Structure formats: C-alpha cells, structure tokens
C-alpha cells in the first residue's frame, strides 16, 4: 500500500481491495448463518454538518452562512448524495475514488461494519469515521461454535467499547456476533450512549441477567433487545429479575428476543411490560413460558408479527389448563403474525391451534420440536405462503415431501438433526432432498443434515433450483459416498457450482476427491464462503479453490489431507480474504512461518491442540490467519502463538 501520508489527510483506507487494486470486495455477508436479521440502518439519520432532516438541503458552512467556496459546495453535495449509499460495499468503492470522496464518505457512513474485530484497531476506525450511528462487530471464527476454538481465545469487546464511547455519543445500535461481553461492558452502553436504541447479541458470551438488567434500566429509548443463541451459564439462584427493570412508563420496545436466556424469570413483569409496549412487534420468549402464559402475552400484544412461543406445553397454573381450541382463539386474534418459532418443548396436540395463522406465515421454525411426519403434515398443509422453514429431521422424507407439495414459495430450508452424532440413524435422505428440489423451485438457501445422500439428488437440486445462493449439505457420517452408486459425491457438488450461478456460500461433505474441488474452482466464481471437512485427496484441492474462486473471502477447512503446499498455494490470495481457518490437517510450523514472513499485513495465529501442552511441536493443529491493519493482537492467550 503506497498511498502517501500527510498530516492533513485521513489515515490510509482500510484495504478491502487486493494489492492489485481490483474492485473492492464488500465486507458484509448477509447470508451469514445466524438467526439474526441483517443489520438495518438507523432511521434517524441527519445530514452531516447539522443541516435539516430529509431532503437535499446543502448546509452552507463558512462565512456568513450564505455562501461557500465552490469546492466546499461540491463536498457538501457529495455528502448529501452519499447519504443514500447504505451498502458497505458501495461505500467502500466510493471511498476509493479520490480524497474528497474518501472524506465525504467517512463523514457520512452511518453503519460501521467490522467483520473481524482484530482486522483494524478501534482507534483507527473511530478516527476515520466521524458520524457513525450503528456498529456491527464480529469476533471469533465460526468454528468456535463447534468447540474448535479453546475458551479464552479472545474477541473481547472492551477495547472497542472504550473507543466507541467517547467517539460516538450519538450511537444508537450495536450488533455483536461471537464476542465476549461482560456485564460491566454492557453497563457502559447506557452511560456512553444516551440515545441508544438497539442491542443485538448473537452467539456471544460473558454476560448475565445482571447485564441485561442494566440495559433494561438504563436505556430509556430502547427499541430492540435481541439475544440469539448466546451462552448463559448462570446458576438459578444468581439470576436477576431484569424484566422488571424496564421503564415503568410506556416503552419504545419493538423487539424483545430472549429465548436463549433459559432461566426462569418474572412472568408478571413480562406481561406488564408487554402491556405497556404498544410498539412491540417481535417477542420471543424462553422455554419457561407455558401455553397458558403465552395466551396472556398474545392477548396483550395482538399486533405481534414475530412470536417465539416458548415451550408450547401446558403447565396448569391458577387459571387452569388451556384447551387447544382456546389457544386457537388466541392465534386467531393475532392477525399480524408472519413468523412463528419456539416450540421448545412442544406438545404436538396443541399444534392445530396455530392453523388460523398458518396461511399468512412466511417463516416457521420447528427446529427445536421433535415432530413426526404425521404431526407436521397437517400443519404444513396450511402454510402456503411459507418462505422460511426450519425443522428437525424427525419429520423424515415424508414430512419434507409435504413441504415440497405445499410450499412452492419456499426460499430457505434448514433441516437439523435430532441426533447430531456421526453414526446416528438420520431420518432424512436424498429422497427428501429430491422432493424439495421438485416442489420448491425458488429455493435460495438450504442447510441439510442427513446420513444418506446421492449425487442424483444433489444434481436434481442444482437443476431444479437455479436460484440457490447458499448450499450447505452435511452428510454426517464422514467420507460417506453416494449411497446407491458408492461413488464419491464429486459430481453432485460439481453440478451445484455449475448450475447455481448465484451461489455465494457452499459447505461440502461426504466422500470427496480433488475432482470436486476442481469443479468448485472452475465454476464457483461467486463463492464467498466455503467450508470443507474431511474431504479431498491432496493439496491440489486447495490450489483449485484458491486459484479458481476469485471472490473467496472466508475459507474454513478441517480434517483434510492438506499440508503446507496447499497453504502456500493461497499466498497470493490471502489479502483478498477476510480469513482462512484450517484445523487438524497436515500443516507444519515451518509452512505457517513462511506465510507469516512473506505477508506483513496478515496475522497468522497457530494453536496447539491441547492448550495445556508445553513446548513447540512441528505440526500445527489449528491455523487462523486474517488480514489486518492492526498487527498482532496483544490480548492473545498463551495457547495462541502469533507467528
């Protein structure tokens, strides 16, 4: 990077682009696997310079307020125009045009998206962007979700909060994913950001109900509190009654999601809170809410659009037991419902109660409900508008067939395994996949766990569903071939990359040779995220991927026969990527060191297999490398060695 520095100019742009100045790659990845909604811009933008709201009124700075020099006018006009650019990708491109655009963009960027919290220092980010209203921060590599990253690795939010606080007093929204946040850090939010409105924590850890209480009490303008798949390790006797801490007057709450906070809570307080939150549209409760309690909540919030139903089981309280028809009347009264989830301990007898809303549902999440085909088919038959469906494999191929027959508008399907072990029975197979491909032609995203698969079914899906953007197939038994032909799954995945021309995310599994990766490299030109496990024969696989997948940003590899040669074949591409993760392959310390030495803007972290092990070993069990302007981080634990 040889942009000349001068004291008057802003720091070098964050290099999203390759060294050869190819067009910048967007850093946002809306197809990221999470339950969270894509981040939204705050609606309260005001023009830079403090001018009037909406519209296109240039703020006349300088002089007596009536006239500005021509080049300043241009800049002001530019800023006003750039307000309309919201996608980070577009903004990155705009910032590269020239210094003037760079400055204008930096002042008007409202959402700061940091895909890797270690890629840039907080100080540098706040110095560049002056008018940020929303921050999205992502921390640990995704494989941390599968226990592959030892505890204490990092991704602490504290240096970020320390920088954001003084820099952005008007900050309204924070989204964190896979970061460690303590209660004390949560306490900084109401203190630093008096206008704070939205907090979203996805797959985070380190906090407790005490922190939630502080947020509830301190953020008087809170609209969104979304807690999704976070890790709570609280003992029941330490739990704080956080729900009672919301303001006693009417609140601005629009969304309250806490199904992962699976400790008992004060239900009366929740009921009262819902009653005084007229704007509430999304409510997802935890499994400590019975059907009877759910009915109370629904009665208080008849305009809900998204409902997480809690346990969906009857727990007779003082009010007696609700019948199915009584519950059905509650649903019938909730005319705005479009998204249902929860069913965390479902009693299938109550399922018919949701029939009144099924026709309007666009999203249905049964992925925590162990339902059979018989139980689900009558429900699905009503769900003609479904676009998103998450389910457990207990429904079997038969259940999926019913989905295929009814849900012709389906865009996203996720089939999770009840028994997530390698040698489980697996209740869905290629038959279900084939049926889905025939019935759901508009499918864009699929995640499918199974034990039996064929190339034919995958090929069929590639042909029937050309709009696929995300294809994630997990054949749970390792190295499983086509169950009928006994051949590797190369042809199936090859067909996917060949026929699905919009594909940006791919996860492969089953028995795969280098040939599969030759296909991926040849045809997967738009792939941004690729996950490989127990696959390939040789380093050629990695070479195919690096050389062919020109848009690759995130590559995760595990337990595959790739070594230093494969690693080094990526040398010319690492700066184009956000990160590369590789564990349990055949890397050596020397190979990783070579990479580290040749690439100064890359942070190369290696981890031992067992954190307690002392001493050096030649082999590297875990490699995590990522481009970074911040250099090696100073908060790495002892089991992380930064080369």
């Amino acid at each position, binding site marked *: 990077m040889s942009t000349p520095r001068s004291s008057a100019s802003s720091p070098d742009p964050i290099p999203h682009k390759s060294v050869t100045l190819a067009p910048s790659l967007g850093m946002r990845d809306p197809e990221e696997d999470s339950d969270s909604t894509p981040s939204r811009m705050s609606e309260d933008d005001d023009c830079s310079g403090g001018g009037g709201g909406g519209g296109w009124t240039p703020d006349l700075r300088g002089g007596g307020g009536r006239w500005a020099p021509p080049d300043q006018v241009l800049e002001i006009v530019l800023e006003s125009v750039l307000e309309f650019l919201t996608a980070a990708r577009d903004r990155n491109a705009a910032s590269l045009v020239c210094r003037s655009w760079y400055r204008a963009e930096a002042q008007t960027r409202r959402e700061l998206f940091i895909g890797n919290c270690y890629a840039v220092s907080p100080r540098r980010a706040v110095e560049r962007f002056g008018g940020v209203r929303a921050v999205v921060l992502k921390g640990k590599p995704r*494989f941390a*979700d*599968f*226990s*592959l990253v030892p505890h204490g690795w990092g991704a602490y939010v504290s240096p970020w909060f320390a920088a954001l606080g003084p820099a952005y007093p008007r900050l309204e929204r924070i989204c964190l994913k896979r970061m460690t946040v303590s209660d004390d850090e949560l306490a900084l939010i109401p203190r630093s950001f008096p206008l704070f409105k939205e907090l979203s924590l996805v*797959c985070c850890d380190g906090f407790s109900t005490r922190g939630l209480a502080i947020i509830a009490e301190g953020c008087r303008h809170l609209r969104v509190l979304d807690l999704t*798949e976070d*890790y709570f390790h609280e003992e029941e006797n330490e739990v704080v009654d956080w729900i009672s801490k919301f303001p006693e007057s009417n609140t601005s709450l629009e969304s309250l999601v806490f199904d*992962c906070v699976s400790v008992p809570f004060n239900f009366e307080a929740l009921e009262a809170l819902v009653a005084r939150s007229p704007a509430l549209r999304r409510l997802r409760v935890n499994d400590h809410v019975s059907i009877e309690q759910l009915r109370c909540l629904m009665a208080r919030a008849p305009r809900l659009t998204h409902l997480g139903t809690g346990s969906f089981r009857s727990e007779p309280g003082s009010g007696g037991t609700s019948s199915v028809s009584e519950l059905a009347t509650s649903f019938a009264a909730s005319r705005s419902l479009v998204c249902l989830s929860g069913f*965390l*301990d479902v009693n299938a007898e109550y399922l018919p109660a949701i029939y009144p809303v099924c026709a309007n549902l666009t999203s249905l999440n049964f*992925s*925590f409900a*162990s339902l059979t085909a018989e139980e689900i088919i009558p429900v699905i038959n009503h769900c003609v508008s479904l676009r998103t469906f998450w389910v457990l494999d207990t429904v079997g191929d038969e259940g999926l067939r019913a989905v295929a027959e009814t849900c012709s508008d389906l865009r996203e399907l996720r089939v*999770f*395994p*009840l*028994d*997530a*072990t*390698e*040698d489980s*029975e697996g209740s869905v197979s290629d038959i279900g996949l084939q049926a889905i491909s025939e019935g759901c032609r508009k499918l864009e995203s699929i995640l499918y*766990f199974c*034990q*039996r698969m064929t190339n034919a079914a995958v090929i069929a899906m590639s042909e029937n569903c050309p709009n696929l953007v995300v294809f994630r197939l*997990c054949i*749970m*038994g*390792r*190295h*499983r*071939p086509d*169950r009928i032909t*006994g051949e590797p799954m190369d042809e199936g995945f090859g067909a996917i990359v060949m026929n699905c021309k919009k594909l940006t995310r791919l996860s492969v599994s089953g*028995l795969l*040779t280098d040939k599969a990766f030759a296909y991926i490299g040849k045809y997967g030109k738009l792939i941004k995220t690729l*996950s490989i*496990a*127990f696959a390939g*024969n040789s380093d050629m696989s990695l070479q195919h991927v690096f050389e062919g997948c020109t848009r690759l940003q995130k590559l995760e590899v*595990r*337990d*595959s*026969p790739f*070594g230093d040669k494969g690693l080094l074949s990526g040398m010319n591409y690492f700066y184009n990527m956000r990160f590369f993760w590789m*564990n*349990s*392959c*055949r*890397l*050596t310390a020397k190979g990783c060191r070579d990479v580290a030495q040749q690439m100064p803007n890359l942070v190369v972290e290696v981890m031992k*297999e*067992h954190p307690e092990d002392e*001493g050096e*070993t*030649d*082999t*590297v*069990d875990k490699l995590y490398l990522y481009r970074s302007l911040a250099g090696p981080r100073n908060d790495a634990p002892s089991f992380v060695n930064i080369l």
Partner: protein
Amino acid sequence: MAGADVDVGTELRLGLPGGGAEAAKAAKRGYEDTIDLKLTLPTGGVQKDSGKPEPAAEKAAADPEKPPAPKAQAVGWPPVRSYRRNAMTVQSVKIKKEEEAEKEQPAATAGGNGSAFVKVSMDGAPYLRKVDLKMYNTYKDLSIALQKMFSTFSATGNEGKMVEAVNGSDVVTTYEDKDGDWMLVGDVPWEMFVASCKRLRIMKSSEAIGLAPRAKDKYKNKS
C-alpha cells in the same frame, strides 16, 4: 510419527496416506456427548497395541475405497452449534423417558418393556445400522435380520453365508459386552446376551482369530 504423540491408539486418525499431522483427538476434548471408543480389531494382540499412535485404522483409511474403520467421535462434528446440541440433549432425554413410560403399558409391544438398541457395524459397509435386540427371541432370528440388513453390502452378495454367521464361516458376528470385551456371538443364553450386549460387529472370520476367551470361560473365571 511424532514422538510427542502419546495419545491412546483408540483416538484414530482420519485422512488418507501421507503421515504427518494428527487428526482430532476427541477423547480429551470437552465434547459433551459420550465418546464412542471402538477398537479396531477385537483381538488380544491389538489390546496391547492400543498404546501405539499409529492404529490399524490408518491403514484402513489408506485405501480410499474402504470405509474408515470405527473411530472416535470428532470434536464439533457434525457441525451443530452447542446451543442446539444442548437443547436437543434435553429433548431426547425427555423423549426416551416418554417412550419408556409408554412401554410400561401392557399394551406395549410384546416381549416386555424397554428396547435394547445396539449399533451394528459390518466390515466393508459404509455405515452403521441399529437393531433392537428385544425384537428377537433367538440367535437365529437375529442372524436372519442382520443378513437382511447387510445383504446389500456383502462383498460376495452371497446371502447364504450370513446365516452361518454364528457358526463362523466367511463372517463372524462379535459383540462388545458390558465389560468392554469382545466376544463371539452365540455362546451364552440369549437373554444373557441381550442383557450384556452393547454393540455388534460383523467381521471376516480371518480377523477374528485370537478373539477374547469364549464367553463361557470368561464367566466361569469370574465366578
């Protein structure tokens, strides 16, 4: 192999020939589910060898055509988030409890309460199956069921051979009992077998030579 690798041989390597880095050694990880320790060969000899870091499984895995030998679970595989895993564990415990409660009803399936599912692996088959031992009353019934189950996989396609499984011609059926010993199927009374059998494995007779002492002797010595 690297000298630093002192892990028990039952933590098996995945991956194809070449040697070098270790595969996931799941047993030491804080992986919440139970670890399936499957021995590569149920012979006395291998018991001693289990300390070596290069188990027979690697040789099996060396040939891409052959499926991998039984192995320990890999950490974080299948890739299901721990949040979901925990929720499912709670669910399946509840389901099991419900199933058992139902089976205690007299109207339940003939043959008594509960079920006795065990995994059955066959050398050469790409994946495992499960059988409920309570569904059968004799070794012969079991043998016929196994024959049906694995007929698609048998290399020779010769279904007749399977019937002789118990008597040990081309293939032999072995089982792992509660003590973790591998025994030949057929030695003990059926009920005792069902009570003590944890896992079944169908292997080539040639590989079963030197199997642990026959069951009768084992129990004799114990008492």
